[in-house]
């Protein structure tokens, strides 16, 4: 059985659907990229997968030992207020809150986990820094470390590289790819189709037509061909 199976899922707000029915499944160690234009419902789909919004119809089933709260999430925009006083350590630790359950304080294991994940994301030396004074790329790493504290299995990333410069973007992609090869399943929303085609094993395209398939199938599909032809043209124009 797959980690996540989605059948005829329609998502939307206040009973109004914004997508066609979506079907896909995510297996262990998949790297699924969700692509599509602005406003087609990618973030909404992700929030529905996380249980933040109710699906309008269809079903989502979790299997293969994955529980609904064993998912790490990196939001598209964290509505963190600019003046929120919080240290990097406090934020990363808060990722352990789900596993702490009713226990009021974090135990040694959780503190270790937070420390490990900060090291893993290369922000160990920033532990006592204030989150709001970090650069965009550093902030993304903090949130990724927090997401890693919440899961050992699946990461849901909503545009993790938006607003980052090309160098930091490439670093971020490498980090995510490494996590994926270490065994973590990745579901990522991205507008960067070139990167999606480069890193992903599967692609879900949301728009007027829904496409789901492996990377190679996507390159053969109409949506994929459309993108590729655009890119060639773009190259010609640029050159």
């Amino acid at each position, binding site marked *: 059985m797959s980690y996540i199976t989605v059948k005829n899922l329609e998502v939307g707000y206040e009973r109004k659907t914004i997508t066609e029915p979506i079907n896909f499944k995510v297996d262990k160690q998949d790297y699924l990229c969700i692509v599509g234009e602005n406003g087609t419902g990618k973030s909404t789909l992700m929030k529905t997968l996380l249980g*933040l919004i109710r699906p309008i119809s269809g079903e989502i089933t979790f299997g293969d030992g994955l529980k609904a*709260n064993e*998912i790490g999430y990196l*939001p598209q925009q964290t*509505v963190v207020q600019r*003046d929120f006083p919080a*240290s990097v350590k406090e934020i990363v630790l*808060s*990722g352990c809150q789900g596993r702490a359950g009713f226990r009021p304080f974090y135990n040694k294991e959780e503190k270790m986990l937070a420390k490990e994940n900060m090291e893993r994301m290369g922000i160990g030396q920033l532990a006592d820094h204030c989150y709001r004074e970090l650069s965009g790329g550093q902030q993304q790493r903090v949130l990724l470390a927090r997401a890693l504290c*919440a899961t050992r299995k699946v990461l849901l990333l909503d545009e993790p590289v938006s607003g980052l410069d090309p160098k930091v973007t490439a670093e971020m992609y490498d980090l995510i790819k490494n996590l994926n090869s270490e065994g973590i399943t990745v579901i990522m929303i991205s507008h960067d189709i070139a990167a999606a085609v480069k890193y992903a094993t599967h692609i879900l395209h949301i728009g007027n037509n829904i496409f789901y398939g492996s990377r190679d199938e996507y390159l053969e599909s109409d949506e994929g061909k459309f993108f590729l032809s655009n890119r060639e043209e773009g190259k010609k124009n640029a050159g």
Partner: protein
Amino acid sequence: MLDKLFTYLQHPIVVKALIVGVLISLCSSLFGVTLVLKRYSFIGDGLSHVAFGAIAIATVFNLTNNMLLVLPVTVICAVLLLKTGQNTKIKGDAAIAMISVGALALGYLIMNVFSTSANISGDVCSTLFGSTSILTLSTTEVVLCIVLSVVVIAIFILFYNKIFAVTFDENFSKASGVRANAYNFLIAVVIAVIIVLAMNLVGSLLISALIIFPALSAMRLFNSFRSVTVFSAVFAVICSLLGLIISILAGTPVGSTIVAADVVAFLICCIIGIAVKNRASSH
């Protein structure tokens, strides 16, 4: 001067006032940080006006123990207000303003139409600005206040990590299996209790000050949630002690004196904050 203070401190009334004053400021400041960060700074104002309206109704019906009406009504409003949170049509601040103004007007209207007391504006004034009622506290009231404060502080400490997680990022918390709605509900109930308690001390108009000033001052100086929380608790205790002592010695109104102390301390924190930043950037 000190002699005078010591003679006053012999009076059980003064001691009671000090205990109650410090405890209430402490409780408000602890949850103040969360409220300010959730953009609910004015909830103190709003809810205290609701409590004022409820007191008016209780007075009209001659309820002997008006807490029986005031507390539940305030709790319900707190829950409704904090629920409006992110996904509703009327945003938090507008909802608070609506309820606040509505309840205040209604309360005054009811008092005016039905009250048997000759001195309506006096009654209203003391409800809004805090009478000297902190100096007329009975022992039962003091004990009740101590018990509730201990409960509030215990809840805050036990749920500290959860409150942080939910305040910092509600969606992430929900996604990782934290019962964010339950904790928001808990926060709302506790806040309602604090506000009803605090009305005795500073009156409904000045409750916001007890909630906002310690948090804002701490945020000028500190960068982590923990240090901000600790500092605002210390700030609140010192300011309310100072305010109470000054008001007793100088015979000024209790509520306004405490708030004046808060304002002065806030300005000092601002200046220190700016100085520290300048030093840091000049190095």
